[in-house]
């Protein structure tokens, strides 16, 4: 009998179809609607951002793995996801050097120097974004002012929808506009309907579960109303939808257990509203998720699942 090829491994001998690379591919598929919408709205400007961010993220990961003498893991798709998310967070008119810097910080410092995919505490794309947000202040006016570089860049001069949150909603985009239209801001702020579509796909594919996004959105919605602001406007405007479905749900940087995820969502939701109402208008979601990220190791410990049949001593 032909038994020359027998492989001996420990059980189980069956494996589900789940693979990290397939999950990352699903994230890319889920980002397709919003990416297409961004390309339609910003044409070659968006394309340029995406090419620079994805390309540099992949290059930096390749280079970092080579220098660390580790297996190159571009195949798992996580660098591409990081690059694309970063691109989607940025406005159309931004100097390419900002993107390269953000990409470097995201991939090399936040991910690879922490030990690579799976060991990073903070969401790489968000950290890279926040780094240039603070470092260059480019979002402060959306005029393309570049802290790292000489000013004089040709930018878009419109108030972002988030500016209205602090100064009243007169003249702000309608809910329908927030859902479907291009109203300025990051290139992903071209209708959160497309993000919802992608989020639904991720939930359908079981790449993410609904707990984190729903907790965040519900928290923001309710808290905004409590504090006298328009809750619905809050959850439709800015980067909240993208953050809730695509960034806060990042496997590596979110809690593993249900209740941990709920508290994580609460922390992010509360931070978003407080920063938006009492802080600066830009980057609230990014800051909030990074703050949430910092709580993850603690949440994993505190909400360690209770073993089957375990009785808690009274």
């Amino acid at each position: 009998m032909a038994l020359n090829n027998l492989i001996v491994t420990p059980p189980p001998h069956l494996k589900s179809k789940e693979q990290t690379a397939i999950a990352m591919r699903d994230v890319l598929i889920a980002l397709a609607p919003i990416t297409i919408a961004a390309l339609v709205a910003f044409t070659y400007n968006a394309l340029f951002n995406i090419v620079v961010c994805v390309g540099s993220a992949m290059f930096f990961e390749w280079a970092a793995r080579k220098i660390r003498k580790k297996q190159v893991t571009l195949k798992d798709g996580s660098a591409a996801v990081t690059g694309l998310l970063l691109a989607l967070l940025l406005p159309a008119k931004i100097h390419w050097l900002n993107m390269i810097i953000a990409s470097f910080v995201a991939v090399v410092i936040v991910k690879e120097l922490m030990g690579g995919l799976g060991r990073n505490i903070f969401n790489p794309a968000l950290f890279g974004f926040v780094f240039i947000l603070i470092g260059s202040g480019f979002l402060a006016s959306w005029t393309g002012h570049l802290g790292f570089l000489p000013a004089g860049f040709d930018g878009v001069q419109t108030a972002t929808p988030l500016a209205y949150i602090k100064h009243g909603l007169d003249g702000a985009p309608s809910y329908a506009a927030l859902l479907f239209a291009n109203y300025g801001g990051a290139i992903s702020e071209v209708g959160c309907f497309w993000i919802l579509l992608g989020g639904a796909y991720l939930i359908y594919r079981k790449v993410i579960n609904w707990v984190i996004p729903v907790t965040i959105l519900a928290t923001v919605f309710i808290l905004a109303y409590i504090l006298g602001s328009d809750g619905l406007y809050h959850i439709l405007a800015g980067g909240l939808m993208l953050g809730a479905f695509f960034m806060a749900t990042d496997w590596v940087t979110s809690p593993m257990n249900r209740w941990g995820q709920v508290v994580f969502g609460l922390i992010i939701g509360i931070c978003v509203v407080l920063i938006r109402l009492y802080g600066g208008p830009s980057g609230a979601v990014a800051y909030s998720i990074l703050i949430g990220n910092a709580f993850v190791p603690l949440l994993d410990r505190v909400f360690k699942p209770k073993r089957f049949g375990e009785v808690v001593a009274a």
Partner: protein
Amino acid sequence: MAELKTFQGGIHPPYHKELASGKAIKPAPIPSEVIIHLQQHIGAPCEPLVSEGDRVEVGQKIGEAQAFVSAPVHASVSGTVKAITEATNFTGAKVRSVVITPDKDQPEFAKKPGKDLEALTAEEIREIAKEAGLVGMGGAAFPTHVKITPPSDKPIDTVIVNACECEPFLTCDHRLLLERTDDIIAGARLLKTAVGAGKVVFGVEANKMDAVDALRSRASSYPDVEVEVLEVKYPEGAEKMLIFALTGRKVPPGKLPSEVGCLVQNVGTAVALYEAAAWGKPLYERVVTVTGPGVREPANLLARIGTPISVLLEACGGLVGNPVKLIMGGPMTGWAQPDASAPVVKGTSGVVVLTSDVVDLGEESECVRCGKCVEVCPMFLSPNFIVQSVRRGQWDKAEMWGALDCFECGCCSYQCPAYIPHVQYVRKAKAEIAALKKK
């Protein structure tokens, strides 16, 4: 339809029961030699009662238990003892074994005159189980007489017959349920008497409704026998999961089912107990499902203990495709074999041959903390943190995250997108923790 009873967590692997579920049990050929391990159960090994050159008759006791937690072994064929030697068992361990060359003609087993099963006392049933060498036939092979001797301060009210057969591919219990329905019920009621329980509950997964119907129609005359349909989910047949699904009781960590008034026995064990009590037949043969995409004609074979699995594979028309895994037991918890030489033991429920097109040997990559292992773990452990602790050599942390509560069902590894072999890490943790506790 109302929701079926089940447990929390678990997975839905591809089952492929159709390969063998329609195949009636048939006797396997008698091999040119049988290799009977003197230890094929949890507990102490047996001492041989025969020596080289002795003649033995089928059913004759050839190994005597030396401790309470042990079970005697019997000759599975009539023939001559060729050797008493070390042989490799299905786990790769060397165990003392009796090798018998069978006679050309094998006699039919002579049934002993029937006993009145209703009149047997608990003590008598335990003795019968012990003498017949009964062990749990679902795979763990825990000596039955020990299991049906519960501590006196823990009364048992419910005997649960594990008819889930939640392991993919395997169908031996399914066939027994269909072909030996009355005997299983009789065996189960003997178990009930042995532990003084009030009722017998059969837990059957919903993919065996023909077995449910058979059980229900045959059990209708017994008010003390219930048949429950359970959701098809792995590991529904794990002892603690099954008890929870059927009774809502949770066996505490580190405790036995008697803690919550339950006894769980496998279908095969119930049949074996019936045969031992009614016919005086010791456990020397069992039904083994030989199946998988690599087997030409999958079958449910009644094989003598000690039959090398190569003989079973030949009886099924040999192999097809490109077989890369030969598994003794089910594909979720069974042991991969380096060759087909290991003999059938009392706990062998199946021989599964997987081909290269169904075996996914992805490369282990970094944990991405997706939490799927936590989601599927039926014991509510954190498999990823156990793995992390083992990698760092932090044995106290491994225990804190639940390494000792893991019964190695393999759901975590099945689901893991990073191909992490959690079960292997857990085994390492258990060994290290045990070694530390000895100090």
